[in-house]
């Protein structure tokens, strides 16, 4: 119960951050990616400040033996740089550049974004479903 509440609060703060930074506006995201056009560096500042807070905060959090609400710290264990990582990033970058939406902002504006967001979101879910039909990599998991 407490873990669910904590997650809901964290999600709310995450969404508020995206909205305040206007990262939920695809036009603003595309303006960052348009480095040869009317470039808007805002997204770099959003990522930079989020990174700085997280880099320091994570290390403070890890001073404890485990999370405040119990359980263990679950960190990704994969370390290999492989084709799946690179191909996934290429596909994601292309889709991101076509529309200006990535998963977080797409979900956050689900209620206020209107039909274009619903279409994008439905296609995004379809892409995630399609991925489940991709055979798992041989050897260790991704």
């Amino acid at each position: 119960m407490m873990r669910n509440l904590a997650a809901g609060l964290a999600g709310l703060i995450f969404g508020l951050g995206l909205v305040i930074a206007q990262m939920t506006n695809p036009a603003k995201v595309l303006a960052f990616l348009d480095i040869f056009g009317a470039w808007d560096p805002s997204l770099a500042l959003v990522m930079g400040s989020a990174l700085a807070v997280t880099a320091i905060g994570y290390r403070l959090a890890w001073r404890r033996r485990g999370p405040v609400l119990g359980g263990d710290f679950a960190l990704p264990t994969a370390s290999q740089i492989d084709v799946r990582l690179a191909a996934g990033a290429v596909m994601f970058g292309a889709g991101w550049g076509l529309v200006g939406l990535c998963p977080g902002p797409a979900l956050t504006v689900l209620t206020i974004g209107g039909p274009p967001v619903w279409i994008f979101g439905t296609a995004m879910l379809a892409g995630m479903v399609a991925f489940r039909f991709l055979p798992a990599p041989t050897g260790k998991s991704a």
Partner: protein
Amino acid sequence: MENFTPVSALIGGTLIGLSAVLLMALNGRVAGISGLLGTALFGAPGDRAWRICFLGGMIAAPLIMLLIPGEARPSLAVDITASWPLLILGGLLVGFGTRLGSGCTSGHGVCGLSRLSARSLISVLVFMAVGMVTVTLMRGSLAGLIAGGAT
């Protein structure tokens, strides 16, 4: 750079970082949205509840912003120019690509880079570069720059 909004970018980014730290400190989990969504939808039942709560909190955020009086409220604009076919293609690529590459702007970009993950660094460099190339090609920005000289 007339659209640069450094103050709201710093405030928003700090909140995103705070959220990632809270989720790690309290629940011990990484705030990667594509992974959260994938597991919330298709994961084992025991893994779903807190992820659904996180995603629900995100969806509630703009609705809470609507309670702020008009002139004080930050812009809630969602300006999308992509046509329907491009929306569908973009969505498919983002959905499939983030699962294949194990993350997106949040999981690799914020959480992964702050853990100094080499995988995340490669991912971020690749998706940023491909995103920039895609926008440049779609808008013909580079061609316009060359043809028009200094703008």
